[in-house]
């Protein structure tokens, strides 16, 4: 790295408040008005050199707009930006990069058909050839604990891996201010700790960090100061280390925090059984599935943890039917062998699925929400009345969509709004709402709250728990371990295409799940400690690949 730490800054890492120097970045009364909404209303913010500064807020609170203004994507309607005490106007992202501002976006901006090195070369304005960059990429990715292969094509990478590319790309630009938008949502607990180490090292070198997140424990662990936004305004600033998660969250949403609880429940009959599911992959960077087995009963939630890229996509596609299987018995839904059935036929057996990708898979961005309700609601077995003799009953479709919008508090212009015009969190609420309203027998969810704000996450988690309490068999694949610990009855880990045995959440510890995540199933949680009262019905039949 060719960063030149300012000696004055380097002297006082971790104690930036005492620095007499001027702030690295100061925003004064930034206001941004969009035709329908005031995104930022007189927002002021001050980031000192070497400070890790959190920006907290729900979706739609104006965090992203504010970051876009700092990064030169959007222009403020009023207010001043001071960079190192000089007033500046940041006209474009390239201008921002020239000042020394780097940003890791929540929605990635990588070209899928290019390699990692080619993407990074483009992002560095193409001045260095990918071949020359490759060793630097390797060095930086190792230094900061973010393993990335520069020669790999981006389209074969999972969300988590793509995020690593984005972070490495920014680090290569030797930024003086790094903006990170929800960076840890797809990392293992160990990787999060490593990232935090890297960020602290960066901060110690004098780089300021603006850290956007909704994970309060992370902000408390990492950040020196927090600016909380609510509805476009600063609702407060705090030292997160002196606040509780609860007080921060309440500052953020402006009211009492809803909680979700898991009442004990005896599981019902087996609704989904996977036996010895192995699947080779055509994609050189895909993950081969090896001997996966599980049983899932009505009225229970099985959480599958693991870092993305360990076979999650392949496993879910095999369950949903998007990848057909050769062995009909590899997947059983209810009492029926479903391995060779198409996604539509599996849905007819009562399967519902919330996929990881919202735009283009879970929903069609160009179509209205009503049409997106029809996307999966058409299946006759769901009995939604959307279809009669092959004809679309637009009245039923619209009232279904309106019902989902109302019950899940989806912020949109109505059922005629284009799906692509919704924010990520709102679209996810719509998709989860749609799938749960189809009276499923088996529900699959992939990353249900990825990039979703805390209020909406709670709503979605509660909806998942409600399904369980109605007797639905629920499988949640998530990279957020906290989430799985909160809502699962049992938890298992997918690593390198193999699935561990499942253990009751009550007897699982985060450290040991972390060991499983690295692919080592030999030792680990629950050894000899499985509580028979909760796993008696299902634990005995679990397949153990080890």
């Amino acid at each position, binding site marked *: 790295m060719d960063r030149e730490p300012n000696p004055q800054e380097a002297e006082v890492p971790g104690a930036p408040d005492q620095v007499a120097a001027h702030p690295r970045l100061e925003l004064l009364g930034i206001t941004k008005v969009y035709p329908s909404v005031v995104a930022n209303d007189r927002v002021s913010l001050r980031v000192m050199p070497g400070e890790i500064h959190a920006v907290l807020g729900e979706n739609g609170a104006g965090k992203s707009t504010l970051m876009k203004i700092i*990064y030169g*994507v959007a*222009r403020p309607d009023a207010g001043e930006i001071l960079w190192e005490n*000089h*007033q*500046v*106007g*940041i*006209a*474009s*992202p*390239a*201008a921002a*990069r*020239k*000042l020394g501002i780097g*940003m890791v*976006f929540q929605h990635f*901006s990588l070209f899928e058909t290019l390699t990692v090195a080619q993407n990074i070369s*483009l*992002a560095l304005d193409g001045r260095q050839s990918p071949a020359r960059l490759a060793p630097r990429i390797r060095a930086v990715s190792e230094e900061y604990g973010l393993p990335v292969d520069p020669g790999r094509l981006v389209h074969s990478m999972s969300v988590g891996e793509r995020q690593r590319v984005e972070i490495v790309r920014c680090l290569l630009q030797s930024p003086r201010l790094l903006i990170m938008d929800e960076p840890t949502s797809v990392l293992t607990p160990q990787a999060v700790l490593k990232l935090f180490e890297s960020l602290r090292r960066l901060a110690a070198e004098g780089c300021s960090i603006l850290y956007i997140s909704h994970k309060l424990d992370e902000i408390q662990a990492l950040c020196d100061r927090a600016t909380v936004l609510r509805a476009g305004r600063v609702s407060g600033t705090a030292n997160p280390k002196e606040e509780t998660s609860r007080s921060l969250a309440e500052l953020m949403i402006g009211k009492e925090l809803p909680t979700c609880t898991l009442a004990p429940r005896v599981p019902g009959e087996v609704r989904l059984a996977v036996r010895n599911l192995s699947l080779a992959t055509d994609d050189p960077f895909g993950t081969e599935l090896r001997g996966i087995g599980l049983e899932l009963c009505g009225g229970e939630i099985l959480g599958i943890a693991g870092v993305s890229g360990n076979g999650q996509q392949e496993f879910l596609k095999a369950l*949903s*039917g*998007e990848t057909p299987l050769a062995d009909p018995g590899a997947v059983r839904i209810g009492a029926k062998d479903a391995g060779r059935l*198409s*996604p*539509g*036929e*599996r*849905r007819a057996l009562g399967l519902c*699925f919330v*996929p990881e*990708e919202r735009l*283009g*898979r*879970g*929903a*069609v*961005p*160009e*179509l209205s929400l009503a*049409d997106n309700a*029809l*996307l*999966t609601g*058409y*299946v006759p077995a769901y009995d939604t009345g959307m*279809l009669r003799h*092959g*004809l*679309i009953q*637009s009245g039923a479709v619209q009232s279904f969509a309106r019902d989902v919008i109302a019950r899940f508090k989806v912020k949109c212009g109505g059922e005629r709004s*284009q799906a*692509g*015009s919704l924010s990520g969190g709102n679209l996810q609420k719509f998709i989860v709402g749609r799938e749960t309203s189809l009276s499923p027998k088996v529900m699959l969810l992939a990353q249900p709250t990825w990039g979703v704000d805390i209020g909406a996450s709670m709503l979605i988690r509660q909806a998942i728990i409600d399904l369980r309490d109605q007797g639905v068999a629920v499988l949640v694949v998530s990279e957020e371990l906290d989430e799985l610990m909160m809502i699962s009855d049992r938890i298992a880990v997918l690593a390198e295409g193999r699935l561990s045995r499942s253990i009751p959440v009550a007897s699982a510890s985060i450290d040991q799940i972390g060991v499983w995540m690295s692919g080592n199933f030999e030792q680990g949680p629950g050894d000899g400690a499985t509580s028979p009262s909760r796993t008696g019905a299902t634990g005995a039949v679990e397949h153990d690949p080890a």
Partner: protein
Amino acid sequence: MIRLEARTEASQKMMLASPLIAALAMLVTGSMLFVFLGQDPFHAFYVYFIKPASTVYGVGELLLKATPLTLCGVGLALGFRANVGNIGADGQLTMGAIAGGCVALYFPDVHAAWLLPLMLLAGALGGMAWAAIPALLRIRYNANEILVSLMLVYVAYLVLSYLVHGPLRDPEGFNFPQSRMFQDAALLPVLVHGLRVNAAFPLALVVVAAAWFFCDRTLAGFRMRVSGIAPAAAAYAGFSERRNVWLSFLISGALAGLAGVGEVAGPIGQLQPSVSTGYGFAAIIVAYVGRLHPLGVLLAALLMSLLYIGGESAQMELQMPSAITGLFQGLLLFYLLAADLFIYYRFKPRLKLAPPAVPVAEPGAPS
């Protein structure tokens, strides 16, 4: 410097305005071309675009030529919506004409009313059969349907040529490569005495209405649309790609086949070495100018028909080369594709210059 930036949402206004802009740009460029050819542009414009449609007979011709363009265009539009690239409608039209014509030639003495419906049915099946080949190859072997359907056009031309030079040649036709003239019962009735426009035109209108209903109200139409814009969402929802490919090809093949019967049982009245004036290819432009919507296809077919007739009129009155029709078609498609860019992009508003404290940098997209 002019820069383009992506719109956040596709512009509906531009979607509708784009064909009009393209038509206007085509007229302007065409007029300039007339000037270069030494013609008075206003007179040439009159001869090309006004005169052909200013008589009752001219309007009849306009509708007559719009008929095969509409039939083929609607079929192709349905396929294009599902992202199925059938560009072989001319071959399917030719095979439809052969199948329908064979029925007429097989029953030379039948004067009953069932003959015409049978010919139309045979034509539709003939077009479908020809369209089934690229569909099958795409599904079984993942062969590119655009190439296969295009190549099969020339095979169909050769089949027709073989038939009219050989087995189907009129024995009393002085060795001309053409079949016997069809009897009256095998000809589509004309709508108005003295005009050539026939019953195929109202049939095309029915097809437009049916296609509109299909796209808007049926699950099959919805499935095809979703597959076209978001294949991953279609797979997720359980829409079979196979079924969409089959449906697209069979529908467009059947409609092209109908158009073929409409030609041989209409203005031509027999099988000849060539039964199409490139309608199947012009229908590709028609489908896109019509925004892949059945009603739009009808309007675009009328415009395209005017280009055909105006081209003939310009050849006769202004001694223009016959290439003029193709040239105007090409201009229209060219400008349409250019104007379509602005559905998804717009000119970036000029940026205010940054204060001098900031290093002035190239504006660019977030990378």
